[in-house]
């Protein structure tokens, strides 16, 4: 197709053992004779000034595509980068000479095939115009608690305009309830006060910050750089724009009415830590039942937390909150005795000193154990409450009397489950349309199970995949993956504070900074037509050949970022600003109408076909490895860096994600004569490591298609294997590859050779 217009130059590096291990002249011959390249040169160390100058010279002389056969593309990416020219990096170092026997025939064949694949790509790849969007330099901050206030302040300091939306009549969030906080500064021993008014004044006096109080969001549409927002403030609608959004909607306490076994609701003297905060703020603690000052206060940690029946997670602050409240109660009344029953006292970092402070107070006694129940006497009785604790060091089952019991309840994120709300809407539509069959039953079941979530929308996104962020574990919308904090599954919308993860105020402020930085990156990269994490700076754009679209909606549904909306008929409506260039739509599309300039069905197929497969009599099998570029490929390269050896019969093609693998490539490879195909991707499941959240999971579901394809071709199922690889797995990779190669050898060669 595009071959004729291309002017390809090949540069071979002989440095880093490449020249010693390979026959460079033979490689040059491959480039010259098999493809019509205009320039083919080698250099002892291409990354030096001289080598770079040679490359520049050739670019100026009209070369359109460069093939740099040297080290991994993860090194010297800037050295060999070019604005006007497509650059393909062929890895001869980590994947060839460092991981295979030097001077060996098979190693040479591997290098030659890698070069052929690189040239094939260079000939096929297109340079398309990036989708630059006019990005609005404004950040919408949803929520005016400590996280939202910090986000607004930091965004303004960084020179961005801020729209701060708070649903209450005033800013501050929970800080308006908390009069004292556990220590934030050295020596981390004393309770501190909170100067909320000063913080609010600072925001009010900032001309960059527009604050809307008693406000709600009516709708958010558009895409990063160009979000169109309609607010409702005191009954009137206000239109505004933003380039990115920080959601800091905070937390609410866990519903203590579910903690009846701990006496909540059965005795007025069993209260939550939030109620204790209000009680302490009055300056004198009175028992709710009779107004008398309690003499013995029991704190029950993890009340409904770290408990599979309630919140399975730790809310991070309850331990320090109870230590604070115990010290505060002792300060208000030195005669008070306090008991703290805990699973573990969690006081991270310098809070250890605060823990010691509380521990040294003679009136604070702590005990590790499981509180199984709080026995409350009948109403009107003067009997004290009895806290029953098991598995303690004071005995397997003990009872301690108390006048007041404080339940340290955890945090529940204030976040709507966008996917469920959308499914509820779809279910209603199914019922309204009068459809019959299993779909109707499923719709009814969903409404019965999750109907209470209807109308909980916060962001009111006009996205096809739902009006709010999809939630992941435990109702938190954060991607919860260690590598990308603040990221959510909606590009340009970042989570901060306790709706992202339970946190203390300091942590919320740090979160706000992180989320604001992400928002700024989003605005700036969107304006340049480049995407965000993890394909930073990628300017390719997916192209949809809409005339061939069958409205199967697979791309709309499978996009992990909800980047596609759809029209009435179900035709996808792309939003390039929301796109993260993962290629999962390309992997999904049965019509194969989606392509990127350098990553399309044709480009990868051409690479597969460029491999020279020896005929069956040579007894040299060929194994195709489609390796996810995020973890599997770096792991392969790490194995090379560690000089680990594995079968030289593998041919590695990096893919954007396992989800971005179209099944046609597997058919192509088998038809070409490859004997086995290894798909290396990231871990899927609840604690996934897939950088595009669902890619490796989708490959799992598509593997059924692959199986059918193999059956069609009368080939063994074992010829295609999917493996999940973490970066740290590099040491087990060679054994895995060799074991696969041995298995393929046992099965025998692919009958479709030649």
């Amino acid at each position, binding site marked *: 197709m595009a071959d004729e217009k291309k002017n390809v130059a090949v540069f071979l590096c002989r440095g880093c053992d490449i020249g010693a291990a390979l026959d460079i002249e033979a490689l040059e011959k491959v480039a010259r004779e098999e493809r019509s390249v205009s320039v083919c040169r080698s250099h002892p160390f291409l990354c030096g000034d001289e080598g770079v100058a040679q490359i520049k010279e050739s670019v100026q002389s009209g070369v359109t595509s460069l093939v740099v056969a040297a080290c991994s593309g993860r090194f010297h990416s800037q050295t060999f980068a070019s604005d006007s020219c497509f650059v393909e990096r062929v890895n001869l170092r980590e994947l060839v000479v460092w991981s295979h026997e030097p001077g060996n025939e098979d190693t040479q064949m591997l290098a030659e095939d890698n070069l052929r694949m690189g040239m094939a790509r260079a000939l096929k790849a297109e340079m398309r115009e990036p989708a630059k969007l006019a990005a609005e330099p404004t950040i919408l901050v949803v929520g005016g608690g400590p996280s939202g206030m910090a986000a607004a302040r930091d965004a303004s300091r960084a020179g961005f305009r801020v729209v701060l939306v708070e649903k209450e009549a005033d800013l501050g969030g929970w800080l308006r309830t908390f009069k004292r906080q556990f220590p934030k500064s050295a020596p981390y021993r004393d309770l501190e006060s909170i100067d909320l008014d000063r913080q609010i004044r600072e925001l009010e006096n900032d001309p960059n910050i527009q604050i809307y109080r008693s406000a709600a969001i009516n709708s958010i549409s558009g895409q990063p750089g160009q979000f169109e927002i309609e607010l409702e403030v005191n009954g009137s609608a206000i239109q505004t724009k933003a380039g990115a959004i920080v959601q800091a909607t905070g937390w609410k306490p866990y519903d203590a009415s579910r903690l009846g076994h701990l006496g909540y609701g059965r005795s007025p003297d069993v209260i939550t830590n939030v109620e204790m905060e209000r009680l302490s703020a009055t300056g004198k603690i009175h028992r709710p039942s009779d107004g008398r000052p309690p003499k013995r206060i029991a704190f029950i940690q993890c009340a409904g937390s770290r408990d599979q029946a309630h919140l399975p997670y730790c809310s991070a602050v309850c331990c320090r909150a109870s230590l604070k409240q115990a010290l505060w109660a002792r300060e208000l009344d030195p005669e008070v*005795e306090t*008991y703290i029953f805990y699973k573990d006292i969690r006081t991270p970092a310098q809070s250890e000193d605060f823990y*010691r402070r509380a*521990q*040294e*107070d*003679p*009136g604070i*006694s*702590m*005990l*590790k154990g499981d509180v199984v129940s709080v026995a409350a006497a009948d109403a009107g009785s003067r009997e004290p409450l*009895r806290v*029953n*604790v098991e598995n303690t*060091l*004071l*005995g*397997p*089952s*003990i*009872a*301690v*009397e108390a006048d007041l019991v404080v339940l340290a309840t955890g945090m529940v994120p204030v976040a709507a489950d966008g996917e469920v709300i959308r499914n509820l809407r779809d279910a209603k539509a199914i019922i309204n349309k009068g459809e019959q069959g299993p779909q109707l039953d499923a719709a009814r079941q969903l409404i019965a199970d999750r109907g209470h979530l209807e109308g909980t929308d916060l962001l009111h996104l006009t996205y096809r995949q739902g009006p709010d962020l999809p939630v992941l574990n435990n109702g938190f919308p954060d991607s919860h993956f260690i590598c990308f904090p603040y990221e959510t599954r909606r590009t340009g919308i970042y989570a901060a504070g306790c709706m992202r993860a339970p946190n203390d105020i300091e942590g919320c402020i740090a979160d706000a900074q992180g989320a604001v930085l992400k928002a700024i990156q989003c605005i700036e990269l969107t304006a340049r037509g480049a995407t965000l994490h993890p394909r930073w700076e990628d300017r390719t754009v997916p192209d949809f050949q809409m005339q061939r679209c069958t409205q199967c909606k697979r791309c709309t549904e499978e996009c992990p970022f909800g980047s596609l909306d759809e029209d009435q008929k179900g035709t996808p409506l792309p939003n390039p600003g929301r796109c993260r260039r993962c290629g999962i739509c390309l992997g999904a599309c049965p019509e194969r109408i989606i392509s990127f300039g350098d990553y399309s069905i044709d480009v990868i197929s051409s690479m597969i076909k460029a491999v020279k497969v020896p005929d069956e009599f040579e007894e040299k099998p060929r194994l195709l490895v489609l390796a996810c570029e995020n973890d599997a490929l770096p792991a392969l390269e790490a194995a090379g860096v560690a000089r680990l050896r594995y079968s030289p019969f593998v041919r590695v093609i990096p893919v954007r994600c396992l989800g971005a693998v179209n099944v046609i490539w597997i058919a192509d490879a088998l038809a070409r004569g490859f004997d086995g195909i290894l798909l290396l991707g990231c871990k899927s499941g609840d604690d996934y490591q897939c950088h595009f959240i669902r890619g490796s999971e989708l490959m799992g579901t598509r593997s059924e298609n692959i199986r059918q394809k193999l059956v069609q071709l009368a080939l063994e199922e074992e010829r295609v294997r999917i493996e999940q690889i973490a970066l740290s797995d590099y040491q087990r990779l060679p054994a895995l590859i060799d074991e696969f190669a041995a298995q393929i050898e046992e099965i025998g060669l692919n009958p479709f050779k030649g």
Partner: protein
Amino acid sequence: MTAIPTPAAVQPDRGFRNRLIASGGEDLKKCFQCATCSVVCELSTARQPFPRKEMLWAQWGLKDRLLADVDIWLCHHCNDCTSRCPRGARPGDVMAAVRREAILHYSAPQWLGNCVSQPHCLPFLLLLPCVLLGLVAWGSRPLEKLFAASTSSNRIIISYWSQLPQWLLIAFFATLVLLDAVVIILGVSRFWRDLNARGQAMGFADNREHEKQSIAASIRTTLRNILLHEDFDRCTFNHPRMNSHRFVLFGFVGLLVVDLWVLTVRFNPLLKDAFVYPFNFWSPWKILANLAGGAMLLGCSLMVRDRTVHSTPAGTLYEGTLFKGTLFKGTLFKGTWFDWMFLGLALATVLTGFGCEILHYARVDPLRYMVYVVHLATVFALIVLLPYSKFAHMIYRATAMVYAAHTGRQRQGGPSEFE
């Protein structure tokens, strides 16, 4: 389905806890139950080891458990635990504070115990015998004659008995000893009863039969242990303590033997004629008394050094450990009033005893008589305080050690550990 056990009521006693804090256990709240103490203690037991559980009981003020706890007495306060405690909670000192409470609890009447254990009682205790003896002496003879007789004397050996009526001294001290005996018998029987009740609760009754010993055998084991200092010998951090205690104990026993001989031999019709008192300087009894006094003086001096020299011993466990020099500050032992009073009285007794002897041989008049009176006062205080001071540790610790042997409470590292 197993029956749900009734939860044991835990009633914290803040007064008790605060007393522990005030009498040497001021760091007890720092414990966070890491169990390092129980692991490093050479004397701890294989099951339900101490002092970890005692630290938690102390934090919660669980008086009943602590007072009847046999383990507080198995502890010999060598501070292996304190030296290794990562939080500086000084478990060894907390155990000592608990023992003080136990002594005061079991030695009736408690008000007397509480009273005599106060610092402000000491002058009264010391003055009382002086006044009493002085009054009696004054009443029995004219005062000037008392001193004149002594000043005019040029004999080398003077019978002290001639200065104070011997019947008075014997009657005076014998009464006190009898009172002590009553208090101790009552205290020990209550203690033994509580040990049994507590031992049942802790499951010592379930210990294997072959580990248990008869009372007689337990007493033999315990006596052997005490005389040979077997337990002291297992301490590592402050092993030299074994010798100071040995000197004091053997000195005390030696002096006790001489005293008992002197007191009883006069009433022994067989030996009455053979007995010559005062002793000649080279009499075997005199030599034994001097040696015993010297041992006690040496032991007490070493104990004072232990409590006053501010440093961790060089070349000991601290070298190269994580906690080097950060947590264990000050002396090996934190001297409390309870501890100092007993040590001080013992030291005063032996010093005044030697003082008398030297002044007597030097014929320094009337100082030797005055010192003698002070000596008698310290002996009086020691005897009166026996059930209420640290002196009582010999009674309760011995009882507890007998109980432990009797019930088969095994040391860690003993045969039961790896079964």
